[in-house]
């Protein structure tokens, strides 16, 4: 097991509350470390999982306050490094794939142009070479006609293709860590599998670390090595994905049980009994 790629210790993200005198913590002391492996962070809306991912990249919304005992990427202290260095890290060494390519791709630039722009920002090179690498990146994510797709705009391609273009764009500079925030939630279920397979291949081939954020516990468990379950800003359980059935925390067990299943109909469905002590 190599040295951890990412170390997070007691991460806290807070936003000013409406009264403007107090702070509301949306992430309350999250700690984990990540090597070249896949970690899934699961939670419902309001659990703080997306905020955790954004805090790592330094993409917390303005007004938010990020503190941690440690937030290190490959030896670099992310909290204390200058903004210029943070910018250099983003895209080149840490990348993020977001949920809906309609909103995360620039709508007024052709797809190919966006990918080339990303590449040039991190590894300036002659245009012809950048073009060639861009087409190669599109081919790697399973796009059959890269030259044609490169000329299209984001609104002209389907969700699945847009997401694959997003992945190509994010991985083109060869980052070591990828944070994927609900990368397949906006896609049809058949397309989801295709995109996940591509992600699976690329992450394995390049030996990247992956943080997979999602609300879908089963999906995360099948895709990742380890799973972190978050509730109300805290990690309530950490377990290996193979051991999901051994989950201890009632929230995790509740989450597993409350989904309807084709093979095991239950009427009525068991619901989650939210205990106030989980908020502590």
């Amino acid at each position: 097991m190599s040295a951890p790629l990412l170390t997070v210790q007691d991460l806290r993200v807070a936003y000013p509350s409406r009264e403007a005198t107090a702070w509301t913590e949306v992430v309350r002391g999250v700690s984990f470390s990540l090597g070249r492996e896949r970690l899934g962070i699961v939670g419902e809306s309001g659990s703080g999982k997306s905020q955790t991912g954004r805090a790592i990249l330094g993409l917390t919304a303005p007004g938010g306050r990020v503190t941690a005992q440690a937030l290190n990427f490959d030896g670099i202290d992310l909290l204390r490094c200058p903004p210029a260095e943070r910018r250099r890290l983003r895209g080149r060494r840490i990348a993020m794939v977001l949920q809906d390519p309609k909103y995360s791709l620039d709508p007024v630039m052709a797809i190919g142009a966006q990918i080339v722009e990303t590449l040039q920002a991190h590894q300036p090179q002659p245009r012809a070479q950048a073009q060639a690498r861009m087409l190669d990146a599109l081919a790697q994510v399973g796009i059959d006609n890269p030259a044609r797709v490169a000329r299209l705009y984001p609104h002209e391609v389907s969700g699945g293709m847009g997401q694959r273009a997003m992945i190509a764009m994010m991985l083109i500079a060869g980052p070591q860590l990828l944070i994927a925030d609900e990368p397949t939630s906006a896609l049809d279920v058949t397309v989801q599998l295709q995109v996940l397979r591509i992600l699976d291949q690329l992450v394995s081939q390049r030996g990247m670390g992956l943080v997979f954020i999602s609300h879908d516990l089963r999906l995360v468990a099948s895709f990742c090595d380890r799973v972190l379950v978050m509730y109300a800003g805290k990690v309530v359980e950490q377990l290996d994905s193979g051991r999901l059935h051994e989950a201890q925390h009632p929230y995790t067990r509740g989450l597993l049980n409350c989904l309807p299943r084709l093979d095991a109909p239950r009427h009525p469905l068991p619901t989650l009994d939210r205990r106030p002590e989980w908020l502590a």
Partner: protein
Amino acid sequence: MTPALGIAGLGLRVVYNGFTALHDTTLHVAPGESFGIVGESGSGKSTVLRALCGLAPLAAGAVRLLGDGAADAGLPAPGSKGFRRRVQMVFQDPYGSLHPRQTVDRILAEPLAIHRIGDADARIAQALADVGLGHTFRYRFAHQLSGGQRQRVAIARALILEPQVLLLDEPTSALDASVQAEVLNLLEALRARRQLSFVMVSHDLAVVTHLCERLMVMHQGRTVELLASADLAAHRVQADYTRTLMAASAGFQREDPTE
């Protein structure tokens, strides 16, 4: 208790700007039955619902209410106020289906005002209680409610006119899993209590088989297969597309990591 009503769409065709979203689709929902429509985006499933309730213009085909057969001719025609009282819809996006500037009270009072139904105060209180929301929610605005609470208000709004057919357009797809379970249970309980007929659209096979007795699988505006949920659960499917959908729904299977 008013007798249950079913609904039938015969040869429905919907065309938007030259693009045929729905090709000659026929479905029969018997009184008191729960019918599901499954498909991916672009399959036309939501368009069927909108055609049934009159929100989508029909290029061809007809919609009829189905009673017990004897007095069917007297049932209200689509588009009439009587039809509106009997057929209502719950929309998908809880964040877009409630008016941003109206309180829950106002939202629920509107259907009663339009149909000139008296006793509004008591009915609103009862409607809220029926969906499990206490009186503290009555004067809140939409932005003061969570996704699950908003969807409950949407259900209350749909049911306050005491319809007999409820159309559900992906009612839980925008909700967290735990909230989804609560809303599904609520819908099931309401259906049993009020003898409603459901027509439910979803992309999630598990959700739709949980709530519905019969299913229609759609793809690119056409019907692929009609089958019972029990058959789907037991993998007794005919069409290849249905099989593909089932395989995809089973989830991601990771190739064994080499380590």
